[in-house]
């Protein structure tokens, strides 16, 4: 008479990701912008980057798009990723204002976090839930997300700039969060 027993080890999962350690202060650090090319994303992120630098004594050192062949609906290229990883201490990316660009912006952000670079994703009210869900799916529900009104595309420049200026405090707080 035999016995039926369970195995004790179970399935293997993907490696859990955690946020990179946020810097204590931003002074002297290098800010990068990863612009996915969505309407007004560049204007918004550059303004946030400039204001962040002015406020904290950091510098905006790199503004890049996703790379040749890449766009909002794909991850950034390996080259662009390496540039950001090596030349920047913190990154701002976006805009996450549709389903696929949200998915890939969050993906890029988490890859950067895994490489030790705190990254903030700029999303909108209509897509913040999706952004958080995708981040949670990567095992990082607490990913750094800053939320703007929807839509960004089609909004006039002055309003975009005002929204950017209003978000700087939040971005400082998100980047300074400990791991």
């Amino acid at each position, binding site marked *: 008479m035999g016995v039926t027993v369970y195995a004790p080890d179970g399935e293997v999962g993907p490696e859990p990701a955690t946020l990179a350690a946020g810097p204590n202060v931003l002074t002297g650090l290098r800010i990068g912008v990863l612009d996915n090319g969505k309407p007004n994303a560049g204007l918004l992120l550059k303004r946030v980057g400039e204001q962040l630098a002015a406020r904290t004594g950091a510098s905006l050192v790199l503004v890049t798009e996703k790379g040749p062949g890449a766009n909002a*609906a794909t991850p950034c290229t390996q080259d662009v990723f390496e540039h950001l990883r090596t030349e920047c201490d913190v990154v701002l990316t976006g805009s996450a204002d*549709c*389903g*696929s*660009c*949200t*998915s*890939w912006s969050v993906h890029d952000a988490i890859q950067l976090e895994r490489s030790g670079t705190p990254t903030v994703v700029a999303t909108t009210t*209509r*897509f913040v*839930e*999706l952004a958080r*869900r*995708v981040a949670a*799916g990567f095992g990082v529900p607490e990913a750094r997300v800053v939320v703007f009104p929807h839509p960004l595309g089609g909004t006039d420049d002055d309003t975009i700039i005002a929204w950017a200026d209003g978000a700087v405090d939040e971005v400082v707080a998100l980047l300074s969060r400990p791991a």
Partner: protein
Amino acid sequence: MSNAMDEQAVVSAVDETAELLRGDGADLVLVRADADLGCIELRLDLTDVECLDCVVPPDLLEQMVMAELQRKVSGAFELVLDDPRRV
């Protein structure tokens, strides 16, 4: 131990995931939840979508739907997701 699939749980899981797609004008339709066969069939509705490239990519969508169903629906099931973007 009951094998009945909780229809309410399926509807709730589908609706919550669909909510994340509605921002782009897409929707998820529950075609059937068959407790006997252990099968849940969904269809991605892109009728009102202006920008096809904007919708959450097919692989990620399927994983998100699966994760939400697994969270809410007990018992084993097979998921069939009809995504028009997949030829």
